[in-house]
């Protein structure tokens, strides 16, 4: 049976950055989902024209409530509408949960390295939250590359990293005052210390723009990480 489209009502919209929002939707009958999964969101114009795009779920399942992270892309057809225009209380259609490959499951106990570029942090945040919620799993490390501090999602939540979550933010354009690392793109040197803390069975999840994912995956493999333990998701 095809996965049905179901109505979902926007109940809350929260700023993450100037151009990114967290959308909380209520989708009656939602079957639940795994951390890392995504949904397709479909919009319908009054002349019947439809457009659908994929968005990552940012938090573990919570009854009928879904939290999506949406980055508005310049010239985009769907994301600017979701970020700026969809009225609170209005409905869209969602289909999901989708994708069983880029997921973290509560039974996983190996160390995990999360590598995020920009809004690629969204499905990885769902994994961090799921792990915290279930209080299981091995140690998590997050390497999070953003242009500058204003581009950082989940600012406060990530700052409060505990003993089992190590967060390293890399600034590519402008590092905040007092940073020990100069602004610049992800390098092998950034990954070396975190990769060395993964056991051979550790899993790496990489999510971000296509070019970032390709660079990160290549750096990880050349630093000795087993390619079979690297899972990637690109968002274009």
């Amino acid at each position, binding site marked *: *049976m*095809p*996965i049905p489209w179901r109505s979902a009502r926007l109940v809350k919209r929260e700023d993450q950055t100037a151009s990114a929002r967290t959308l909380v939707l209520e989708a009656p009958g939602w079957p639940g989902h795994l951390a890392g999964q*995504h*949904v*397709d969101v479909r919009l319908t114009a009054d002349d019947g024209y439809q457009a*659908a795009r*994929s968005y990552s779920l940012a938090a573990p399942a919570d009854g009928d409530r879904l939290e999506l992270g949406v980055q508005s892309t310049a010239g985009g057809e769907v994301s600017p509408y979701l970020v700026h225009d969809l009225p609170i209380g209005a409905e869209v259609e969602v*289909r*999901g949960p*989708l*994708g*069983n*490959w*880029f997921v973290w499951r509560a039974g996983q106990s190996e160390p995990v390295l999360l590598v995020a570029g920009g809004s690629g942090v969204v499905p990885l945040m769902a994994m961090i939250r799921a792990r915290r919620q279930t209080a299981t799993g091995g140690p998590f490390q997050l390497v999070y590359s953003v242009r500058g501090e204003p581009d950082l999602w989940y600012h406060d939540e990530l700052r409060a990293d505990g003993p089992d979550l190590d967060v390293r933010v890399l600034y590519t354009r402008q590092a905040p005052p007092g940073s020990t690392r100069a602004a610049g793109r992800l390098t092998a040197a950034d990954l070396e210390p975190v990769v060395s803390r993964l056991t051979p069975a550790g899993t790496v999840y990489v999510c971000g723009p*296509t*070019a970032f994912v*390709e660079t990160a995956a290549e750096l990880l493999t050349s630093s000795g990480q087993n390619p079979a333990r690297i*899972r*990637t*998701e*690109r*968002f*274009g």
Partner: protein
Amino acid sequence: MAQVSPHHDSPHLDGNSLAGPLSDLFSVDVTRAWWRCPGCGSTGPLAELHVYGPEPGLTARCAHCSQVALRLVRHEEHTWLTLGGAEGAFRFRTAR
């Protein structure tokens, strides 16, 4: 034949994004499906294919050599699925 560089700048997603569109046709999640590229012999999950589109259709290609793995075209009445790079397609009635 001009070589298509494996590291390209054209916008694309990956096979993770095929989960929704292919759920109209398959009852299992497709992103974990194992695939072997007939062009370069590399193997991996469908999630790692490079996916171009969505218009005029979705084209999934080998991440290493760009060989076409599948094409999916969704129209009002019919959904078309072509497996591999060859001609010949399956036509399904579009799910509502």
